[in-house]
């Protein structure tokens, strides 16, 4: 199997605040891993550190055996990590097709896309996320769930080995959530390693076989969703002190 991502003693301080505190864990190739934690746990900061949007204060990140600590996001994307964002973003004035084409034009994406033609590759990605019939339209016409699918499509254009999904379910109706879940499962089946985080745990905890829990920047525990949800510290973090009776 092999380890695809290794995080060691990762720490990030913002002035007096330690957002991520000495966090270490591993992700195995082809895994489906979740990251949970209440507000302020450091989940998004952790993603930013892995993706290069923030530089760690100390610690290392290794991807596929290679030290990527402190690299810029576009370098990391071209090594094989892609991410989606909590707040949906899109290229507002480009068509859906062009939105995907941009990632197909990245150095890494181009290697694959050039064989079939950029537009054709972008088209097939749009089809994979179920948006191909709106290819020539701008993102503004899309409902929220489809915008999240578009984001995933954009990530796919760079041909990633590891996909970081930041809150893929927030703000979606239950049907929309199911649509995203199906898409994520298909991607995982195709061999993409998926690392996802979120506050909406209804879908997430029933989707991933393994979960890591964080609280106040620290790594708390990991295990199956059942194990983690019954962990005393995790319960207290989410529900308050003395919450065992609620378990």
């Amino acid at each position, binding site marked *: 199997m092999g380890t695809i991502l290794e995080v060691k003693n990762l720490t990030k301080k913002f002035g007096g605040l330690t957002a991520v505190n000495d966090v270490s864990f591993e992700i195995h190739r082809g895994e489906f891993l979740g990251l949970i934690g209440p507000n302020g746990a450091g989940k998004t900061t952790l993603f930013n550190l892995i993706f290069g*949007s923030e530089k760690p204060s100390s610690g290392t990140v290794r991807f596929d055996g290679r030290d990527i600590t402190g690299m810029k996001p*576009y370098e990391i*994307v*071209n090594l094989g990590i892609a991410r989606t*964002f909590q707040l949906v*973003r899109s*290229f507002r004035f480009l068509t859906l097709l062009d939105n995907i084409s941009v990632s197909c*034009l990245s150095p890494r994406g181009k290697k694959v896309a050039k*064989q079939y033609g950029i537009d054709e590759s972008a088209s097939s990605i749009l089809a994979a996320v179920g948006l191909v019939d709106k290819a020539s339209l701008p993102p503004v016409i899309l409902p929220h769930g489809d915008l999240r699918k578009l984001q995933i499509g954009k990530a796919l254009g*760079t041909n990633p080995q590891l996909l970081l999904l930041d809150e893929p379910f927030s703000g979606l109706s239950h049907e929309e959530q199911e649509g995203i879940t199906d898409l994520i499962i298909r991607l995982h089946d195709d061999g993409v390693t998926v690392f996802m985080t979120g506050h909406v745990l209804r879908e997430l905890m029933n989707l991933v076989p393994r979960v890591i829990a964080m609280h106040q920047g620290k790594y708390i525990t990991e295990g199956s969703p059942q194990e983690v949800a019954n962990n005393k510290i995790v319960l207290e973090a989410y529900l308050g002190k003395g919450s065992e009776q609620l378990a």
Partner: protein
Amino acid sequence: MPNKTQRFREKVLGFPNYFKHWIRDFKGGLTILSILGLLSFPLVTTNSYFLGLFILAMIYSIFAASWDLLAGFTGKVSFGHAIFLGISGYITAELLKYYNFHWLSALFFGVLASVLIGLGLGYMTLRLKGPYLALGTLVIGIICQKVFALNPLKPILHGDEGISGLPALSSSTVVIYYVVLIFMIITFIVLIRITKLNIGTLFKSIRDDEIGSEAAGINITKYKIIAFMISGSFAGLAGGLFTMFNRSISPLIFQPLYSFYAIIMAALGGLATISGSALGAFLFVFLTAIFVDFAEISLLIFSIILIIIIRFTSGGVLKPALERLKDLWDILLGR
């Protein structure tokens, strides 16, 4: 699966058909008509005042189009585009007057200098956004104006008198007209082509969402600088032509007013259209010419007209005008 050679052959063989369709298509037809119109204008009149107006408009349209590539397509709104005009203009003037270069080579080096300035400016403003970028570029422009006017630097930079008495490109205004026209056509073909290529899509992605573009694996630093260099090179072309047309240059070329000209003309015509810049430039030059005789009131009226246009045609004049003309075109072609 079609490979590269096959697709290239398809493109070449299909060109005549493509061209026919392009002309029948509204935009192509209009473009051909405009080019023919410009080409034949000197046949209508050889009055140097009117020719001069058109020459000025054509030079400005190159300038405005270069700005539109940077601002409309890459989202980098510069308030100091006159820097390119000036640097290129000074180099062109210097080489023409003091080193007896042929005008083409003088122009070439002026453009080369602009490319380098584009590189420098692009690098300096990498982290600046929005109002900070505008302010930064504005300030650099003003600094250039002051520096070039400095007395102690007179031996090199010619102080506030600048360089004058440049040899004319040609004794005939008509020749100058056609030279400028050719440069304008080349400029627009190149710039419009760029926006349609992959790199154009990348520029637009940077404009729409820099972080998203980075997350898509694009080296935004590289492309921002490239945009500055391309934009700068054409602005420099405008600067060199402007200097040769006026046969002189002074530090006043760096003043914010000229930078504003680029913005106004591009906005008038329509941002992110490239061709709109031509329309905006001609409109602007004509309006200024009409009002030049009417004393101070003219400035007021002129400004009001500008504000009305910009206010009510949020996308510039080009698109609404095109809509009207398109209907007319369809009628003419009997659709």
